[in-house]
């Protein structure tokens, strides 16, 4: 908390004392994305369309439509529920207003699925400073979710969410740009998944039963990251990021990323390795000793101790750098990410014939494919 306060004081000092410089609106472009995730017997695919256009010289408007079509027979639903199909649709609009060196951004995002609705309002102010070497951004967002249940039409629980973010983008040398970000998020309301259960050991010591999860009604988290991108002596770039995270549920994590980008003729090749490591929430257990063992109970694998490692390969093809039909340029990009999830204390309950708690830990691999077509105008 003390750190957050000091950072905010530092930022306010920065904005009050510095000289404003010119900034520019984002590129006018349209992106058509097809995305597909496949792993743990879950397939999620769909389109995402993002259109951005200037209105006059000071305003940029954007709209995004995103769909997830989900087919799931994951370990969670196989062991405690039934396979299902679901569709999630999300729409967003945004407005950016540029005045001198200040950019003000406003956004609204709404998403709906059969048992979940979400609405988020966001506001951000960016200021360019010191001959455009520094950009400082302060952001705030307010979200309201409604959690439902497909098995109970009368079930509806609210979640309120607020996020406070600050960020600095800094040019250090002719070859190096770095970013610093801090974000605090608070949640209040129904924060668990209504379908999930914990398991506890029966009195006989050789079998187990299930009861509903019980989560705290509040959660506050802090995350801070440092990222950088460096231009190599030949025309190529390396980039990296480190992020630390902790929350009031006892979850702590670190994320490390390292990437390389190499252009060749009309193509740009890039690769990336991302490593994520997490320690469990205080109230998580793979197997509780008995029914109602403690106030809060969770066996959600996202709250367990685990690592995930992601390998990326991507290639972009600049189709028309001197014009593409009515557009100034066009680009086709393919991304492939392969993710390995390795859980340390989440058992694979599909394995039978062993005593509770002696099942092997769960692991799975996932592939994420994206095909992106972009035009600029």
């Amino acid at each position, binding site marked *: 908390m003390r750190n957050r306060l000091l*950072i905010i004081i*530092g*930022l306010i000092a*920065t904005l009050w004392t*510095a000289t404003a410089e010119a900034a520019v609106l984002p590129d006018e472009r349209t*992106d058509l994305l097809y*995305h597909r995730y496949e792993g743990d017997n879950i397939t*999620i695919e769909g389109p*995402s369309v*993002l259109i951005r256009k200037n209105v006059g010289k000071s305003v940029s408007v954007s709209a*995004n439509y*995103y769909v*997830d079509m*989900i087919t799931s027979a994951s370990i*969670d*639903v196989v062991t405690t529920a039934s396979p299902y199909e679901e569709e*999630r649709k*999300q729409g967003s609009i945004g407005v950016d207003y540029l005045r001198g060196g200040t950019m003000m951004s406003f956004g609204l995002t709404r*998403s709906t699925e059969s048992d*979940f609705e*979400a609405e*988020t309002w*966001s506001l951000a102010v960016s200021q360019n*400073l010191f*001959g*455009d*070497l520094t950009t400082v951004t302060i952001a705030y967002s307010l979200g309201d979710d409604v959690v439902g249940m497909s098995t109970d039409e009368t079930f509806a629980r609210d979640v309120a969410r607020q*996020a406070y973010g600050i960020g600095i*983008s800094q*040019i*250090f*040398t*002719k*070859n190096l*740009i770095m*970013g*610093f*970000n*801090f*974000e605090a998020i608070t949640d209040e309301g129904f924060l668990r998944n209504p379908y999930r259960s914990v398991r506890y050991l029966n009195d006989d010591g050789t079998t187990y039963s299930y009861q509903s999860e019980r989560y705290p009604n509040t959660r506050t*988290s*802090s*995350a*801070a*990251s*440092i*990222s950088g991108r460096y231009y190599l002596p030949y025309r190529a*770039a390396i980039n990296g990021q480190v992020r*630390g*995270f902790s929350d009031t549920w006892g979850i*702590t*994590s670190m994320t490390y990323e390292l990437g390389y980008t190499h252009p060749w003729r009309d193509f*740009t090749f890039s690769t990336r390795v991302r490593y*994520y490591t*997490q*320690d469990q929430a205080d109230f998580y257990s793979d197997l509780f000793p008995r029914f109602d063992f403690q106030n809060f109970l969770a066996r959600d694998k*996202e709250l367990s101790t685990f690592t995930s490692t992601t390998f990326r390969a991507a290639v972009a093809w600049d189709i028309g750098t001197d014009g593409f039909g009515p557009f100034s340029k066009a680009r086709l990009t393919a*991304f492939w*990410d392969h993710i390995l999830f390795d859980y340390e204390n989440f058992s694979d309950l599909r394995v039978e014939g062993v005593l509770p708690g002696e099942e092997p830990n769960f692991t799975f691999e996932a592939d*994420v494919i994206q095909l992106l077509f972009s035009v600029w105008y």
Partner: protein
Amino acid sequence: MHRKTTQRIARVALALCLVTASAACSNIEPWVKPYERDRLADPIMFLDHDPVSTSYMYHVFESREGARGAEGVVGGGCGCN
């Protein structure tokens, strides 16, 4: 250990804020001139070249990991069970 690292990263961000603020008071000249930024203007140096793809990947990770924030804005909903 992770908590200490998070605090360390937050302190570095704070230090940068204060250095930036004090630099403004001394009316510092930009040390990288506009005409020296051709490499930084190369698309391979963009921090976020494809925002629609970046926010999708944030969503993929945030749905399956406990951590959130300090990377970008992610929409509501989950689709992760």
